[in-house]
């Protein structure tokens, strides 16, 4: 599969918009490249793909893509994407959101998109704070962490986004980090191919705000942290359910084959046409 991608992924990138707006050391560029490579590996024609973005640093990703795109409002991308997918089921709809976008302001839409099991692929870049607006606290910021609005330490707990998506009924739930590029690419391909709601969390550094305020070091050191503090789902400790505190569990976390919204709605339509005939 990967060999197929070759340089074809460049076809999905809007080169004239480069260089991108993201800070040096930001993880967003890695996710963008993996996404383009996944599209290329799956051989998806640009016109069949719609990228729906929310508002935030990662939400600017649509500016660098040559697919169809809809850049929406803060937190609502999943709801826009739902309309697109239901209206034209043959489209491949990718929803790119930051953690603040998807889980804080948009948490309700996340729960319901997963419950409805709409055939979308959500790619959430979790950098534990609001990058675009200056590094404020987010719903994924861990307790005690310093952000521009929790200068004395975050009094709240952070969400585990994957557990939410799983509990709400997503057909595929997975996590990677921007250090684990081959895994990230594979999960993107699987998420896009999977019917129903796919949820992919990508843990990523924001050296400019989160890294700096929490003294996590240089971008390279933040990457090393992602490498050393990640644990694959197949690792013995993970299998035993013993993920040490502070470690990031990566890989496919949940998978099911529940009917997606449109498959279930087909039955509604059949009942409606049956009723029409009886009339």
């Amino acid at each position, binding site marked *: 599969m990967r060999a197929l991608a070759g340089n074809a992924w460049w076809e999905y990138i809007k080169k004239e918009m480069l260089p991108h707006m993201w800070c040096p050391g930001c993880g967003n560029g890695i996710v963008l490249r993996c996404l383009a490579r996944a599209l290329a590996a799956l051989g998806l024609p640009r016109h069949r793909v719609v990228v729906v973005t929310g508002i935030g640093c990662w939400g600017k990703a649509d500016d660098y893509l040559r697919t*169809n795109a809809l850049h929406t409002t803060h937190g609502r991308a999943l709801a826009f994407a739902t309309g697109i997918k239901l209206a034209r089921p043959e*489209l491949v709809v990718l929803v790119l959101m930051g953690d603040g976008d998807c889980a804080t302001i948009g948490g309700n839409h996340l729960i319901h998109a997963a419950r409805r099991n709409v055939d979308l692929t959500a790619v959430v870049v979790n950098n534990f704070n609001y990058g675009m607006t200056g590094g404020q606290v987010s719903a994924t910021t861990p307790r005690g962490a310093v952000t521009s609005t929790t200068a004395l330490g975050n009094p709240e707990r952070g969400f585990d986004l994957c557990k939410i998506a799983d509990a709400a009924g997503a057909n595929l739930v997975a996590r990677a980090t921007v250090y684990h590029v081959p895994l990230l690419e594979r999960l993107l391909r699987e998420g896009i191919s999977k019917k129903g709601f796919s949820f992919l969390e990508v843990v990523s550094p924001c050296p400019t705000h989160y890294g700096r305020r929490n003294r996590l070091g240089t971008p390279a050191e933040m990457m090393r942290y992602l490498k050393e503090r990640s644990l694959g789902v197949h690792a013995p400790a993970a299998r035993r359910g013993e993920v040490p505190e502070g470690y990031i569990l990566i890989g496919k976390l949940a998978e099911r084959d529940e009917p997606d919204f449109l498959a279930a709605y087909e039955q509604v339509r059949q009942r409606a046409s049956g009723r029409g005939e009886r009339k």
Partner: protein
Amino acid sequence: MERSKRLFMQGNEAIAEGAIAAGARFYAGYPITPSSEIAEVCSRRLPEVGGIFVQMEDEIASIAAVIGASLAGVKAFTATSGPGFSLMQENIGLAVMGEVPCVVVNVQRSGPSTGLATKVAQADVMQARWGRHGDQLLIALSPASVQECFELTVAAFNLAERFRVPVVLLADEIVAHLREVVELPPAEKLPIVARRYPLCPPDEYLPFRPGADGVPPLAAFGSEYVFHITSSMHGEDGFSNNDPANAARKIARLFTKITSHREEVVQVKGYGCDGTLDILLVTFGCTVRPARAAAARAGKLKVGVLQLVTLWPFPDREVKLLARRAKAVVVAELNYGQVVCEVERVVGGERPVYGLHKYNGEGFTPGEIAARLEEVAGLCGL
């Protein structure tokens, strides 16, 4: 050839049927009194005609899904009332900015906030026009009968497609819950405006390059035209653009694409408005009926009733010209004073303008309006 059908219908049902007749095949909404029947009818009717009904988690999501469906090439709408209309505002702004055709039905109820949840009001007129941040214009229509609920819903979809703009159907609890006989024209007699798709080669398509009329053709996601829509300020290519000259051009066009075709948009109906008048009675929606009844019993006072079918853009010229033929103007509306401000602005002191405002959750009786007409006649020595 099919003949028109006469049916006994509720206003909300007529809105749902009007939407389907206009070609709507997607409804996303969240239940709220007094609009819920529209959702209920759509949940049964849309799957019958190959469409989709989805009850979303809130009104923010509802309008978002509608915009998404429209960009995928399917005529789409939602219906709500005050609290839900408030929640929709940010994304209606996106539909204005992204120039996405869609229809939002607001069956007005008494506010503010939860207010008198089951009672009537006409107090969202200014919200429909100004409820969002930023400079912008959209179209709002207001039905006064069940027949108009049907007809204006069709018109709303046509205008939305014609001008690539969200159209608000500003109904009210009385009209929406009224039941009366409507005449539904056969499909071939119904004027339906189809979306203007681009004709250029796909790699030349710019989703915001206006045609000669100021309106850019709109492709559908999934067609051979690949395109980009954003809520941010953008250039003709649909990508972010910070150039001040571009921003000024875009904002101005959001207005002029509609105002330069005002004859296609602005609709009023006059009842007894010929010749000179003692009083011009301006009103809209559910207040039209009691206003006409009051005018009919005004004795030797000559009262013409002007129904504002289009509320936005405001029928400036129509109001101004008719006001000149009257000695005084009265504006009757179920709010503390909204349309009356527009009428005062338009009449510009040429004639005295009086309001008649009711905001207790009840509609007007003809007697109440007749009493105000007499009072104004007295004040003006008519």
